[in-house]
């Protein structure tokens, strides 16, 4: 196949953002929305086609594109396998939803907002496609610029503080990764990851390089104790920003562990497993307890994200088939659920301009459709069987039990805490007594909101009952990941 489908996928949103940039006038806001919606749906369909035509019976990278980039040094190399394709589809699926959410929630500088979202989409797809460390770093870091602007320009009252914190935390984490990437280049003579997999990095370097990568991924994930930027960023970001942040940006780190840390540094991954277990368990328990005490809905969901990401890291570093499959599943499902929850908060925020839990109460009496959808997502976040959230957590815990009873027990305890904060919030927001007289005059979800939330709800429930399409896609890749890891450990 000669058609550069991955490059098209990456640069389609960038091109359409250029198109919007060049179209003139303020009255064009609607046309800007249509252009961006059209292009993002086209990107989504293209990614579905990619998924459809991907050969899932092999763990090889497919649709590989290679182009000389920096002379004799770095190649611009792209490719997908069973793991990355799902993240690409998730990205292209969430982006149109974000654009739809702009219709209701973004009132100023809509054109610029759409441009930022589309440029961000380009960088996100790029992260999941790149097969070269430098290209990966380029896309990984470049995403900071549009996200910084999204939080800072369209955010809430403390937006400046949050935007700075987000930018500087992430940048500080990832410069160490840049050092590690360059060191890897001098050790192996290449930054092409398929070659690095085969060359094997010397044992004495692995630990320190692994830690350098961790510093970047831990901030992005985010893992305790460097998670503090996330609640701030989420609270202040506009709805679409929170959705992208929770649904996709956080997944880059999990993807990074799978694509880089484990295959490139198997010995170090084995060595640092206890550290990751500890951090994950602290993240799960501690942030769940913190989430219990929040008055702000967005903050609560943000902390719950940290806890859910704790399961992901735990699952990845069990280094068992179930654990890793569960992590990937959890990432996809969390991408859908957290996106939906932030959208739900956005829906009522657009109406009452408050994120505080105590502003609301008894919404079920006045906004029945909304309450139903909210309940679906809240239950999915808890991991109720029949929703996609259940399978991810279940697989992760299955994997964890094979390796460490203690970690698994503590993580299971976190599930209970998760149920506690989520149900408590639901009780206070959806049920309970209406104290605020403004709630009575609220209108229920409108058409565009229904489209966003219902499509997310459909997939949450669909993948809760029928996980086969996802698991089939990544299972061969995960198997080969684990096989390679074990071979590397034995040969050591």
């Amino acid at each position: 196949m000669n058609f550069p489908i991955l490059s098209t996928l990456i640069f389609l949103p960038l091109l359409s953002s250029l198109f919007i940039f060049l179209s003139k006038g303020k009255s064009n806001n609607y046309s800007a929305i249509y252009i961006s919606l059209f292009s993002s749906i086209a990107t989504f369909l293209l990614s579905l086609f990619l998924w459809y035509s991907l050969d899932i019976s092999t763990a090889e990278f497919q649709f590989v594109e290679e182009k000389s980039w920096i002379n004799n040094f770095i190649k611009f190399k792209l490719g997908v396998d069973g793991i990355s394709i799902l993240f690409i589809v998730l990205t292209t699926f969430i982006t149109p939803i974000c654009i739809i959410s702009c219709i209701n929630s973004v009132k100023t500088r809509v054109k610029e907002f759409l441009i930022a979202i589309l440029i961000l989409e380009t960088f996100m797809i790029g992260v999941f496609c790149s097969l070269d460390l430098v290209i990966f770093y380029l896309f990984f870091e470049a995403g900071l610029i549009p996200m910084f602007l999204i939080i800072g320009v369209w955010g809430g009252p403390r937006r400046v503080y949050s935007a700075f914190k987000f930018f500087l935390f992430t940048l500080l984490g990832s410069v160490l990764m840049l050092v590690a990437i360059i060191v890897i280049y001098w050790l192996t003579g290449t930054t092409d990851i398929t070659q690095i997999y085969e060359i094997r990095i010397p044992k004495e370097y692995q630990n320190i390089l692994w830690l350098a990568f961790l510093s970047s991924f831990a901030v992005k994930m985010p893992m305790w104790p460097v998670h503090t930027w996330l609640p701030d960023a989420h609270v202040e970001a506009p709805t679409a920003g929170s959705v992208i942040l929770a649904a996709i940006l956080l997944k880059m780190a999990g993807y990074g562990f799978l694509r880089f840390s484990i295959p490139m540094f198997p010995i170090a991954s084995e060595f640092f497993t206890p550290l990751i277990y500890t951090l994950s368990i602290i993240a799960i328990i501690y942030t769940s307890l913190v989430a219990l005490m929040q008055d702000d809905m967005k903050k609560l969901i943000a902390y719950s994200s940290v806890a859910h990401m704790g399961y992901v890291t735990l699952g990845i570093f069990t280094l068992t088939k179930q654990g890793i499959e569960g992590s990937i599943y959890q990432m996809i499902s969390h991408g859908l659920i957290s996106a939906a929850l932030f959208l739900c908060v956005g829906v009522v925020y657009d109406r009452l301009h408050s994120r505080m839990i105590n502003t609301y109460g008894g919404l079920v009496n006045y906004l029945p459709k909304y309450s139903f959808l909210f309940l679906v997502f809240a239950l999915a976040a808890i991991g109720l069987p029949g929703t996609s959230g259940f399978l991810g957590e279940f697989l992760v815990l299955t994997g964890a039990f094979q390796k460490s009873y203690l970690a698994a027990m503590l993580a299971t305890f976190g599930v209970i805490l998760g149920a506690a904060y989520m149900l408590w919030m639901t009780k206070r927001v959806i049920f309970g007594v209406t104290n605020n007289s403004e709630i009575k005059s609220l209108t229920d979800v409108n058409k565009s909101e229904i489209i966003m939330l219902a499509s997310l709800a459909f997939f949450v429930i669909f993948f809760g009952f029928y996980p086969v399409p996802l698991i089939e896609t990544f299972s061969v890749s995960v198997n080969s990941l684990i096989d390679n890891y074990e071979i590397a450990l034995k040969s050591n």
Partner: protein
Amino acid sequence: MMNNLNIMLPEIFLSLSIFTILMLGVFIKKSFNIIFNLTSLIIITTIAIIINNPDNEVKIFLESFTRDAFSNYFKILILISSLFVLNSSKNFIIENKLDKFEYPIIILLSILGMFFMVSSNDLILFYLGLELQSLSLYILASIDRDNLRSTESGIKYFVLSALSSGLLLYGCSLLYGFTGSTNFDTIAEQLNTENVGAVFAMVFILVGLAFKVSAVPFHMWTPDVYEGAPTSITSYFAVVPKVAGLALLIKFMFIPFSNILLEWQTIIIFISIASMILGAVAAMVQKNLKRLLAYSSIGHIGYALAGVATGVISGYQSAIIYISIYVIMNIGAFSCLYLLKKDGQYKENISDLSGISKKHPVLAISLLIILFSLAGVPPLGGFFAKFYVFVAVLEQQMYTLAIIGLVTTVMSAFYYLKIIKTIYFDDNVITFDPAKNKFAQLSIILSCGILLTFFLYPSVFNNVAITLFNS
């Protein structure tokens, strides 16, 4: 002999043109416009002459003058950046009544000095070039002679610079005393680590050169001069002499001092780290854009010096790539300053940029690109500049230098973000006069265009830099 003159053709042409337009300036009344346009023409012609000159290595006049790919590259870089700096500042010069005909002529004289600096292969020629450049710069710094701050900055620059020139000269004489020659190649052969006196001389020369590129701890003049001098002069100071200074530094490390690598390497590492840290920390609290750019330029020189500190050719190449991209970014940044005009007054405080993204979206987005690029965020050009430097630094396994460099990158990102915050996040909206300075707009667009699309051809400067050290 005629052959020799042929090799010096750019310098000869430049000197003759300077004398000619000096005469013209004296005899024609209100000659600024003519002289200015002639200056641009001379610069373009000189570029053409250099490009047409073959760049195989030739040494003439008792091997005191070199013409090679290295010097030609830097000459072209100096000329192109002067062309952009001059033309984008023309409106500013006229509006601030700096339009004396000497202005462009002095700039040409300083360029001539830099030509001799980058071409010199002899301590005496090198010093003559350096002084010609410095003397022109003293005058330029205080060209707005009725303005107290401009005069002050000129005096400050003169006193400190003269001191550093004195140190440099002392170093040169020591070097001559201990090696018995003023020729770079002979010095290189004579020098070794046993020769303590020569190592002593090397320190003095390094101090002088560090002063010229405003590296810490010899940077004290930079913020004051940048702030005090008129913006058109500041932009010249920030770009062109830095290029020449760095070229000279590389040349010294590459030819005369190549045998005492370990001695000077430690010093350069220290200067580099100190510049990066001071550039990042001191810029955080600045309110004046020109002052901020002064500290930012100190930081940037720190990164370029990190490349030099590796002591290998790939490191020098990375420093050359760095300074080239730095030139592009700074021309863009200073051209933006020419557009910040309100009620006929040029604004230079960060707070004057408040909320300009609403009324001047194109200027705002250009500043955004340039500032993120200065901060070194991918995929913009500034990232690649840093990337190549750190590739070279890590090749020599200088991990401390690399990590400090990258951490200061994050710190310096803070103050660039602060400007972006003022432009995009602040609510009160400032409107500037409609921009009339077409050339400044052109340079901004060019600079942004190059920085934005740099990732498409990231090895464009590498290809050139590789050819510079073939000899």
